């Protein structure tokens, strides 16, 4: 890090997803630089699972992610706002129903 000649400025950015326990989903934990996907997995192991945070790692090139446009947030998300009946909690659950 002290040597500008060997800076990793050419390494692309990867997003890292970690599954913390079997059965749970992978969650986004952060990003890192690596020369390719294989190196990104190893870097993720060293950077993000040092304290037993994970049992599985996914990486994806940040540039391969297609994101929604913040400017379109109203058009995308506003219509859901007045449809609270879509929440399952909207309905009273009969006492007889177990394990829901």
């Amino acid at each position, binding site marked *: *890090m*002290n*040597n500008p000649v*060997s*800076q*990793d400025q050419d*390494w692309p950015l990867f997003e890292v997803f970690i599954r913390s326990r079997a059965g749970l989903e992978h969650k986004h934990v952060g990003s*890192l*630089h*690596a*020369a390719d996907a*294989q*190196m990104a997995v*190893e*870097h993720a*192991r*060293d*950077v993000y699972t*040092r304290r037993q945070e994970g049992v599985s790692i996914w990486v994806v090139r940040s540039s391969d992610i297609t994101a929604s446009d913040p400017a379109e947030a109203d058009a995308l998300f506003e219509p859901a706002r007045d449809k609270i009946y879509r929440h399952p909690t909207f309905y009273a659950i009969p006492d007889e129903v177990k394990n829901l």
Partner: protein
Amino acid sequence: MSAPDLLRYVLRLGDTSLILGQRLGEWVGHAPALEEDLGLGNLALDLIGQARLLLSYAAEIEGRGRDEDALAFLRDAPEFSNLTLAEQPNGDFGRTIVRQWLIDAWQLEVYEALQASTDTRLAGIAAKALQETRYHYRFSSGWLVRLGDGTQESHGRVQESIDALWPFTHELFAADDVEERLAAAGVAPRLDLLEPRWSARVSDALHEATLTRPSKVHFPWHGKHGVHTEHLGHMLGEMQHLQRTYPGAQW
């Protein structure tokens, strides 16, 4: 099998891990990228963890009231019995990778074989260390191939490091009386049986990395007998400074 033999053998293993781990620790804050900084730091901590298990065991065998810390911080260079290769300076990143890769490949064979040791304590330590070493080898051989099969600059530098460090590999499999007696007792592996496996693994990786294997060199270094290069003394000076200046100092 005698206790003095076992003590010397366990010290050799423990000192090699300790000295190599300390060397890797010198990279912290200086690696080419943050991700590699953490990677080398992880390797260093694994190795120092192995050293703790082995040196604690050595201290018990010795039975003179010393503990792992006394062995690590209060012995002088001639009392250290690490492989000479482990104490060689870091050099550039490629040099560190070559040193690491050569020792990782050696530890892979040694720890794998030691799992079947008649000394159950040693077998247990080896089983734990083997898991760590598998990752170390993956890390170091991966970088060896990237650098060797990389740019002209990286290829040239890493080949130079292989040529420079190769003479130290002779010691890895040069069994002495201690190792032969322990092998006969089923405590330690026979080094002459491990060498072909190490050699084939190393050749495969060199081939993939488009690097050239130097010709066999019979240059007898004797780190495991306490005869070291000048580098170990300098390194111990730094490593032991605090404990020797403030005896008994603790975190």
